[in-house]
């Protein structure tokens, strides 16, 4: 079944730790995205990729980095987590044309203590 997977679903981590949020999709989509979601706020785009070896920063300033070495895999890394990074992180993918809208993963809820 074509889908998009995010792990872990929940993560509580101490300040200063390095973490990687995983995102994989089985649909062969060219485009992938990372969004940050906070209650009552619009989704903020933090990173996106239009294909292998292509990554761009989004609208929201972020201290995270991403990589796209394989089409299906788009991990997000925080080198040194801070309490301000506490949020829900959503990964999404879409076909090249975007006509179909986005397919979202179930999200990773990150808490930095």
């Amino acid at each position, binding site marked *: 079944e074509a889908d998009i997977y995010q792990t872990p*679903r929940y993560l509580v981590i101490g300040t200063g730790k390095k973490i990687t949020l995983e995102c994989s999709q089985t649909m062969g989509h060219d485009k992938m995205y990372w969004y940050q979601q906070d209650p009552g706020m619009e989704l903020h*785009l933090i990173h996106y990729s239009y294909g292998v070896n292509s990554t761009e920063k989004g609208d929201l300033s972020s201290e995270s980095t991403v990589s796209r070495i394989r089409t299906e895999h788009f991990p997000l890394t925080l080198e040194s987590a801070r309490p301000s990074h506490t949020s829900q992180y959503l990964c999404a993918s879409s076909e090249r044309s975007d006509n179909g*809208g986005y397919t979202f993963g179930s999200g990773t809820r990150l808490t930095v203590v």
Partner: protein
Amino acid sequence: AQSVTQLDSQVPVFEEAPVELRCNYSSSVSVYLFWYVQYPNQGLQLLLKYLSGSTLVKGINGFEAEFNKSQTSFHLRKPSVHISDTAEYFCAVSGAGGYQKVTFGTGTKLQVIP
């Protein structure tokens, strides 16, 4: 630049009653419009989309939306809601064509009351 406004942050409605969730957008170019639903502890799921053609768009779970270019609106409607429709609903807009940025609204929480 484009923007999306969802005026209602919360909408309570009784089961089997009709509901309308409002969405207004602004954009200087032709647009694609989307509605997504997010159930608790889940990601967003595409409900329906408007790309071109008929202004009345039907989606999953009995929802429909009407594109009104003159009023720059894309309101979501359902004639009779169920408890299972309790969720948060997000309107989104992008410029028409590929490689266009998508802007999401702040969401409307639909609470269906038994």
